């Protein structure tokens, strides 16, 4: 059976692609500081394979009874899949996505050429 993905119609507020930010090197520890109140979403073009999408909100969540298949709905962007290379990583990413949805906190995430979120900050 082909891997499922969430239906676009279930996600409100999608209007085109979001901003892309700085290219980021894969890091084993967080480097960003909390955003100031004045900071908003950022735009810009990163390296082809890597983009940082900053200043977003998570407005929906989706999961299914398939191995490592969890997505978040990003306001102004649409559904984005969470990296599926590791059980503990996708559960942690899902927890952070859920936290962002509940708190409506600001999210900055790194999306790779596979269109999945590989790193995320939730403030």
């Amino acid at each position: 059976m082909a891997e499922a993905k969430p239906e676009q119609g279930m996600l409100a507020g999608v209007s085109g692609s979001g901003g892309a930010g700085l290219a980021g090197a894969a890091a084993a520890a967080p480097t960003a500081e909390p955003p100031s109140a004045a900071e908003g979403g950022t735009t810009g073009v990163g390296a082809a394979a890597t983009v940082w999408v900053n200043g977003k909100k998570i407005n929906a969540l989706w999961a299914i009874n398939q191995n490592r298949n969890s997505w978040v709905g990003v306001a102004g962007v649409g559904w984005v899949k969470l990296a599926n290379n590791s059980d503990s990583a996708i559960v942690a990413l899902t927890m952070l996505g859920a936290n962002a949805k509940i708190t409506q906190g600001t999210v900055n995430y790194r999306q790779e050429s596979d269109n999945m979120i590989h790193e995320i900050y939730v403030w």
Partner: protein
Amino acid sequence: MPQDIDVSQLNTLIKAANASWVAASTSVSDLPPDERRSRLGYVPRGGEESLEQRVANSAGRAAATRAAAIGAPAAYDWRNVGGSNYVTPVRDQGGCGSCVSFGTTATVESAFRIQRGNPGLAVDLSEASLFFCVGPATSANCTDGWYMTPAMDGYKNTGIPDEACFPYTDHQQACGQCADWQNRATKISGWHTIGSPADMKTWISTRGPLATCFTVYSDFYSYRSGVYRHVSGGVEGGHCVCVVGYSDAGGFWICKNSWGAGWGESGFFCIAYGECGIDSTMWAVEGVVETGWLNNTHVIGLWAIDQDRNAWAYLAGIGWRKIATDNDNIFFDLLRLLAAAKEGGRPVNVYQTNGIITQLYVL
């Protein structure tokens, strides 16, 4: 009170040398010669440059040091950064050659305050533990002194508890740490030497103070104020201190000494670039890892990545802390509770083991 140092004559020599410091009778210059020298406990070993090499290396590039500030501010002083003082109080090593322990500990204490972004952080680590417990394995003692590599390694590999666990007294003694010293120990994540004056300034202005060592000549005991340069007297020995700032305009480093607050400029002194081997090499503390409770803080950020069991929480006033990775359920339990605290805006009490979150209460 010994009168073997003629301060009046020394000030005449300072003026004749066109130097800009003032000599006076001080708490150290007033001591008998052997007691003065007992405070000089830096004896380089284990591949560290000799005192002579340090003097030659520094002197040979003194002019370049003044100019080597590309990318760094022209002046910096951790005693006053935006009105905040990140330097812990001046201590007095007394009549024991334990300056290596004091210079190293002062550097770690400031690194701790800076890492926390909290100039008021109550941090007072045990110089006695470093010198009398870690030191003996590499022959540290009050008479013969010590050297920097095992002192920095002691902070990295063993960890040093708080002052109350083993208060310092200035005589040779056995290790007398408290029974639970390991639970109270502070470690550093790493250290390295810096050999370039430009890199020293960059480190100081962006990361924190550095430890350094230099040759003490007899006129140094009488330093009262100004920018020290050697003008008179022979070599007395090696000494280690903490460099808390610098000034390119004045051409000097600002150093925290360990001869009490009554010596020098309230325990500090300024020394000219290139002088006495002060800037041949300096020692940098890369970070402080912590063990113990952090009470009543808040989770204001979370971070995760596509790596096994790698998630961090940002604690208000503290910074990023990694979540324990012992196994999946430990990792997820802690992460979920941290997320719940963030969702509810609830305070948390967090226990860190070497800087890793291993237990928490959500209140």
